[in-house]
């Protein structure tokens, strides 16, 4: 069997390919943009306030004198950073708890599952509101990521737990156990490799959920006040009633960027899901 070419793979998984392309473009936007745009212009008062798009400021400026193209170039990587850190921490905690619950069962399983179920019922945004209002110090981008990560572990925990639960009784695990492998060896050698597609799909959803939560908090004014993240840009746009004044160049670019992030992540997770879970996707 010959290895399929990259083009053939792309045709076979159109959603995954399209999603990866979109995500790549969004990730590259910051670093590439900063070569052409002076990100210092994203600071308050670095340009004349309230100007519409022009040659000098392609996306215009906001009420506080920030160049909005520079804001986008500086802010997109910050929002992505919050999403990636929170997604990774959430998935890490979730995988650990999911393995403990699924592999060992018993009272510890009941406890972990119960905690995850109860916390999932409660709208995460409200807890994050309480947490963020309680933090007196100025919030930084990394703090923001950790705040969001504190509620990003429940869904990975449940997914991984149910996967581990069904794999634990599978034939190859029994064989490994009979041949004298210890618990940790079974987890590392038999379970983890089989879970990789699920872990990848969970990571993508966790990043998406974290970006969603962080933008929600920021739109309520609970984000890093001095950083031009996408959510804070929307907050300032709402705060200065840009919508009612028709200042579309203020709120439209962050929305387009956020939509690109979500659509890209959504396509990637759908593509990964088709690989991890082919039966669901048989075309009827």
């Amino acid at each position, binding site marked *: 069997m010959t290895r399929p070419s990259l083009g053939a793979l792309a045709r076979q998984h159109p959603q995954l390919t399209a999603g990866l392309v979109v995500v790549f473009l969004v990730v590259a936007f910051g670093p590439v943009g900063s070569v052409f745009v002076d990100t210092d212009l994203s600071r308050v008062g670095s340009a004349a306030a309230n100007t519409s798009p022009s040659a000098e400021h392609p996306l215009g400026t906001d009420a506080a004198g920030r160049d909005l193209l520079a804001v986008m170039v500086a802010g997109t990587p910050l929002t992505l950073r919050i999403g990636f850190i929170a997604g990774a921490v959430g998935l890490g905690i979730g995988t650990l708890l999911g393995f403990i619950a699924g592999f060992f069962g018993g009272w510890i399983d009941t406890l972990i599952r119960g905690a995850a179920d109860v916390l999932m019922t409660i709208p*995460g945004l409200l807890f994050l*509101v309480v947490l963020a*209002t309680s933090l007196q110090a100025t919030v930084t981008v990394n703090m923001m990521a950790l705040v969001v990560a504190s509620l990003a572990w429940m869904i990975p925990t449940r997914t991984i737990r149910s996967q581990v639960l069904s794999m634990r009784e599978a034939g190859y695990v029994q064989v490994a156990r009979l041949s004298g492998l210890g618990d940790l060896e079974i987890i590392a050698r038999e379970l983890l490799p089989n879970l990789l597609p699920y872990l990848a799909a969970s990571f993508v959803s966790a990043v998406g959920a974290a970006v969603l939560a962080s933008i*929600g908090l920021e739109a*309520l004014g609970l984000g890093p006040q001095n950083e031009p993240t996408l959510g804070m840009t929307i907050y300032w746009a709402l705060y200065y009633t840009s919508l009612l004044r028709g200042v579309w160049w203020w709120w439209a670019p962050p929305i387009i960027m956020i939509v690109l992030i*979500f659509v890209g992540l959504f396509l990637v997770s759908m593509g990964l899901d088709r690989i991890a879970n082919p039966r669901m996707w048989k075309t009827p």
Partner: protein
Amino acid sequence: MPADYLVRRFAVFLIIVWAGATINFFMPRLAPVNPIRERLLQAVSFGGAGKTDMEAVVATYEAKFGLDQPLWKQYLRYIGDVARLDFGVSIANFPSRASDIILRALPWTLGLLTMATLIAFAIGTLLGALLAWPKSPAVLHYLSAPLLALSAIPYYLLGLVLVFALGFTLRVFPLGGGFTLGTLPNPSVAFAIDVIYHSIVPALSIVLSSVGFWALSMRGMMVTVQGEDYVNYAEARGLKSRDVFLRYAVRNALLPQTTSLALAMGYVVSGAVLVEVVFAYPGVGTVLFRAIQTFDYFVIYGVVVMVILAIALATLILDIVYPLLDPRIAYKR
């Protein structure tokens, strides 16, 4: 309906509310300085006309959570207050009680959210069922891609775009609010029409961005059900395709869909809070937004507990109704 099922479900309800209230109690106290006390002292130092009022609030507050009291006593007192829905007074609007402010806003949120969620659930479920049925028109398959893309967009961002398009540019719908400014809420037909008119765009943004979610999950359910023996048997018996679709496949796929409704509640509410902020809708979300901006802690914590209570209640009701719909569940675990 067996009593022990009801008792167990009610226990879960209490645990959810208790866990929510407890986190709500301890989180602010993890911070090095008590933010509520700081905020109150700040309000006093800015003083002015409200100075004596604020001193009264500080006095009440200190007496209530007195620092001389041990933590467990404060906690027990707090749980008692939550049970009576007493969250203290608003700092920003001094004499009003936090619970009054929230209860006044609650019907707006419940109305908008229930209506929008039910419409989205119905349309999405129908669409998802049709997507999985081989006999449905091909047009639907082209419709599904943009709907799925819409489901990837948070409610409130879609709301912003819709306000701009329908409210600001075309001027066919209001820019926000729950009713025309200057009118007073009254039980007349004209006012009801005004309220509905104001709720169309906020509801539309919730419906458009959640239809795809329901469609996708219903489609998954349908694919599973269509592999079942009883569907094959029904087809083999030569039943009309439409009958197999409606009475064998859709009816059975509908039940797990109801469970997703219960699970999605938290997500739906989080999104709706922000929709209200975008539309300046007079619901709980806007109350929360104003409270955050004025650091009105008692109102913030009150909103959090009230919303958790509402969600836990809705989940409880769904859990009790669910076995009535699906005899297979039979009130087991």
